Structure formats: C-alpha cells, structure tokens
C-alpha cells in the first residue's frame, strides 16, 4: 500500500488576532495537529495599543483543505478574522532579506553592481564583506540570493512574506 497526497495550491492568509500569550503556539499547533503545511509565517503587532497582531501565513493545500484551514483558524477564540488574500483578489506580497556576502576585488565590485540592479541597500560594510538589505517578492529575493551565491554568499536572514490587499479597503 502507498500513501497518496492531494494536489496543493499556494495561498497567502492574513489572520488578525488578539495579541495574547500563546496565540502563535495555538496557530502553529493547529497547523501541525491537522496536518496542514506552513511555508512561511510572520507575526507583528499592528495597532497603537499593541492589542492586535497580524499573522501572515503562506500555506500550500488543496482547495478543500484551504477552506478547512480558514474555518479552523476562524473558530479559534482569539482570532478576529481570517482572509485568504490569494482567493480574495489582488494583493501585494513583500519579503525583506539581509544577505551577507564576503569578497574582495572583482567579486566585491560585482556584488555591488548586482545589488544596485536589485535595489538592495548596503546596511553594513567591512573591507572584506557587505550586508545587503533587499525587499521584494519571493522570486526576486530568491534570485538575488542565488546570484550572491556566485560572488561569496555567507548567510541569509529572511522575514517571510507579509501581504496586504490592494485598493482602499482593509482586509
């Protein structure tokens, strides 16, 4: 006997939650307990009184499972609302990466030139290294990191995706 898996689509969810202790564990645990998958998860307070957090989750699942994910998240007591941004319409996704590159001579110049093309900023420099800050969609950052691999990549820190719906209305 072999175990088969369903075909998955990638969706970005915005989960607006009460900022209470354990909420992140509750959400992450729900995903593991029910066998859902998390590609990326970011969380931050988004109101002045620090009472509400916005969690952005990128997940891959079949349409039926996605419906369940949204419903299961929505019934958690501290959750205000859940938006499937991918399903609801056009939205902007951005990620920030810090990319450390070591190099001297030509490699150094090449790294700076590529950074310029990708609109990456230098946020730290020594005579033998740079740290670049780059923001953009997943593909852009993937590509930038890949290119840096050829000119002396040391390490990468990425925030994971944050996303927001286009237009004037709140999600």
């Amino acid at each position, binding site marked *: *006997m072999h175990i088969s898996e369903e075909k998955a689509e990638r969706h970005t969810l915005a989960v607006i939650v009460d900022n209470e202790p*354990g909420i992140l564990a*509750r959400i992450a645990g*729900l995903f593991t307990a029910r066998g859902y998958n998390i590609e990326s998860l970011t969380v931050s307070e988004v109101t002045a009184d620090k009472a509400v957090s916005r969690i952005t989750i990128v997940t891959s699942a079949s349409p*039926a499972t996605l419906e369940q994910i949204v419903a299961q998240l929505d*019934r958690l*007591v501290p959750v205000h609302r859940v938006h499937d941004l991918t399903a609801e319409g056009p939205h902007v996704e951005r990620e920030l990466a810090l990319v450390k590159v070591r190099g001297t001579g030509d490699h150094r110049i090449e790294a700076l030139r590529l950074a310029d093309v990708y609109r990456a900023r230098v946020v730290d420099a020594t005579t033998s290294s740079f740290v670049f800050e780059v923001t953009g969609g997943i593909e852009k950052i993937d590509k930038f990191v890949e290119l840096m691999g050829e000119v002396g990549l040391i390490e990468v820190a990425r925030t994971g995706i944050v996303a927001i719906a286009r237009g004037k209305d709140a999600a």
Partner: protein
Amino acid sequence: MTEKSGADILVEALCDLGVEVVFGYPGGAVLPIYDALFRSGRIKHILVRHEQAATHAAEGYARSTGKPGVVLVTSGPGATNAVTGITDALMDSIPMVVITGQVPTTLIGSDAFQEADTVGITRHCTKHNYLVKDPARLGPVIHEAFHIATSGRPGPVVVDIPKNVQVATAKYQKPGPIQHKTYRPALKADRAAIEQVVDMLAAAERPVLYTGGGIINAGPAASQLLQELARITGAPVTSTLMGLGAYPASGPAWLGMLGMHGTYEANMAMNQADLVVAIGSRFDDRVTGRLDAFSPNSRKVHIDIDRSSINKTVRIDLAIVADAGHAMEDMVRVWKARQHPKPDTSGWWQRIAEWRAKKCLAFPESTNEIMPQRAIRALWEATHARSPIITTEVGQHQMWAAQHFGFDLPNKWLTSGGLGTMGYGLPAAIGAQLGNPRALVIDIAGEASIQMNIQELATATQYRLPVKVFILNNEYMGMVRQWQELTYESRYSESYSDALPDFVKLAEAYGWKGIRIETPDQLEAGIADMLAHDGPVMVDCMVAKLANCFPMIPSGAAHTEMILQANEVSGTMDDEAKALV
C-alpha cells in the same frame, strides 16, 4: 470594595455562575482553593478517586442536565490525568470548565515539583484555555470561560491558576452579560438559506434527516422541533451515536442509528436518498463509511453551529451555520407559513419497509448462554418505563446498547462517541446521578472497560449514589476480538481478559451489592434484584463469549456493503482496509 484572595474570587465567581457541583481531587497547588471551598460551604465537592474520572463525571453531569460540568484538579499529574476527559469533551462537544492548579508564577518554567505546562498540553484538546497570572483577571476569566464552554459549539475550557495567584488579593465584581471581542458564535440561520432548505424538503422524493449530538446540545426544545419537522415533512429520521434520544426510538419516522453499526434501513436510506439534511451531526468516518460511495445521489444540506464542520469530509450543497434548535424552529415556521402540504413520501416509505423487513438487528438466540443483545433488551424491558439514564463504556457492549436499548428522550444516553474512551461509563454515571438524584442511572459496561476507572466504585459509595453497573462479561475485549476475526484471521493478539477479578466480591469490598447472572433463566430475576436494591449495584452478567456486533459496515466499505450476520465474515482484509481505523 475589599480585596479577596484569588481562591475566594474563584469560589465566589463559581457561585455567581450557578455552579452547584464540582468534581475534583485536591493537591498541593490547589490547597488555597480547597480551603476557600471549605470556608464557603456553598458548592458541593465530589471527591473522585482519579482525575480522569472527575472529567468524565463532569461530562455525565453536563450531558444529563444541560449545565456545564466543573472540574478542579491540582497541577502536574492532576492536570495530565484530566487530559483524556478534556479531549473526550472536545470531541463530543460537552460544556466543561476545568480549573487546574499551577506552581507559583515565580517557579513556572523551572521544572518545579508537580509542574507541567498545562496550557501547552491542553492547547489543542480544549476549546480555549487560560493561564491566569493576575488575581484581578481571575473573575473575568472564569466568567468568560463559562461563556465559551457553554455557547456556540460547547466544549471544554481549562483555566490554569498558579498557587500565588490563588493567595494574592484583588477586587471582584460579578460582570454583566459577556460581549467577547472576537468570539461571537452565530445562532440564527440566514433567512434565505432556511427558505432554500424548506424548498428542497418540499421537493424531495427521498429525504432523510440525519441528526446528531448538536440537537441534544441545543436543548430539549430542539428535540421537540425535530419531531415536528419529521411529522410535517414526512421525512424519516436517522441519528448518530451521539444524537440518540433526540428523536424517539418509538417514533414513526425512526430508522435507527446509522453508520458502522447502524441499521440496514438507515444506511440504505442514506445511500438511496435524494436529499440528506444533516442537523447537528458532522459526517464522522464512523457514519460515512467509504467517502466516495457515501450517499452518492443526494443533495446535502448541513446545519451546524461550527462552520469548520461544513465541507470537512463531505461536500455540501447548502450550508447553514446556526444552532440546530433555531434553524429547525425557522424551518418549521417557514414551512407552516407557506402552508406546504405534507409531501407524498409513501413510495420512499415503501422502500424503507422493504429494508426494515431484513430485520437487521435480529440475533441468534441461545438457551444455554445469555446473548448480550438479549441482556440489553431485557434491561430495556425492565427499566424503560422509568426513562433511565444509560451510560456506557466503549466496545461491543456500547454498540449493542445503542442498537437494542431504545431511547425516547434526549439527555438519557451518555457515551464516549468521538474519542471512544474506555472507562467513561462509571464516572459518567456518577456525574449523571448527582445531576439527577431521583433518576435510575445504569452504566452498561464490558468487563475490560469497567476496570479502567473501577476505583470510582468508592466515589459512589461515599456519596450514597445508587448507580447500577451492568457488565456484559464475555471475557474478551470484544470489539478488538471482533476486528481480529474480521481482519486478522482470528489471531487473538492480547484481546483475552485474563485474570479478571470476582466482580461480585469486588463490589462488596467497596460496599456495593454484587449480583452474578450466569444463565438465561437468571436474567430477569437478576435485573429485578438490581432494581430492587436502593444502593449501588454491580451486576456481572456472563454472556456468550464469542458473540459479535452486527450489522457492521467494515472499515472502508460503502453503506451498501453491510455485513448483516457473522457467517458473512471473510476473516481477511486488504492493506487499504487494514490501514483504516
């Protein structure tokens, strides 16, 4: 306003919430609360013999009264022992509030004596949980916990209270009605959806009402509405294990339970229906059998208070997120306002009559052995006039009780459906008896399950609770043995109940009356003896050892592939079927 200790705030809040009974077990981290209970004297505390039993007793109390069950246990092992019952309450949607002691906030995270990460451990087996670090928050949290446990889809809520929070002082004031920031369960259905389901019921030729525990949770009025709905629409009614009693087993529209050990007529009706209206039921795998063959030609309406139940396993044509009682009330009102005539479902009922003629619950009788099904029927004969509350453990006896004991009223059938917890029945009977002092409460048990919480015999003795335990003793974990016969060519791996105690002597040792029934001719008299005794009684009823529970839909099979009798069993299954639970 003077300040009170956290422990006093807790007890006062429980009193304000109308709590009459708490099931618990003391320990170091709840000593301040136990002292507050002692000084207050306003709440009856039932001392169980194991924390798991406290949770099942609270479930039994809740299920039989409609009120939330309340549990009080200490930190560490007190809390971890309660986890099984908390999970059970989550699976079966039972309103329950569990207060757990915790080590002082200053010691949390230090691996202190009897420390466990209770909120971490219970995060996914509760509807919600809290760690209260400030005594001023304690009152509001307790009130909120009861609100969450009892509203919407009911469930267990854990409130973890560190010992120093029980001792520290704060002000407490009874809060007004709770308006929660984020938690607002919908009760009333969308009007258009109600109109639509009424249209569908009026047009259906082969409708079935597929009902579940949600109707019981919606209160006794919902059961009345279900009868009304069945009467005016002419639709037959089937129910899940958890929903038994919502529609009377003696009622004209009753098909019997559906699913794995349901009746032939109920499962065939689901298979052949053109409209299935699910009310407070959740298309559980024990009900649907093989999903791609489940009710293949029907349109499906799902009425449920929990949106996540909808489209979870079966695709729905019309979803109605609402309380079962409210939704049925609206359906009945719209139906009557439109003056719909009762649809002609006589052709449908004719087919149902043909399926009923199979007499799927018939079983081979014996003159020298007690058939377990016969024992259940004898118990029903002797007691049904008193509308007894029946609890069960888990296994063959549970399914036989569901099949052969007819329930005519809600809140009379207490069983562990979702989690399937052996050891549920005796503590649940104790809880039910406390909530219904004058009722006849019987735990229909198996000799294996009963041993999982046997220590609770002492609890019944201490509080003079006249509960009855009726053991169908076949010296096997019968359901395990049955599956081994079906799937593993009768290799009885560890399913024999060896080294059984003498249940009569055991009962007597705990101050109970013990009765043994060994032959068919002793059955009626033994039951009469049990009923005649006004204290707790344990009956050890020796039944046919190898009897199996039929009809049965094997795991992974369709409703039409029911095994009706033991001689239809093959003894092996392919790997796909073996992998299913």
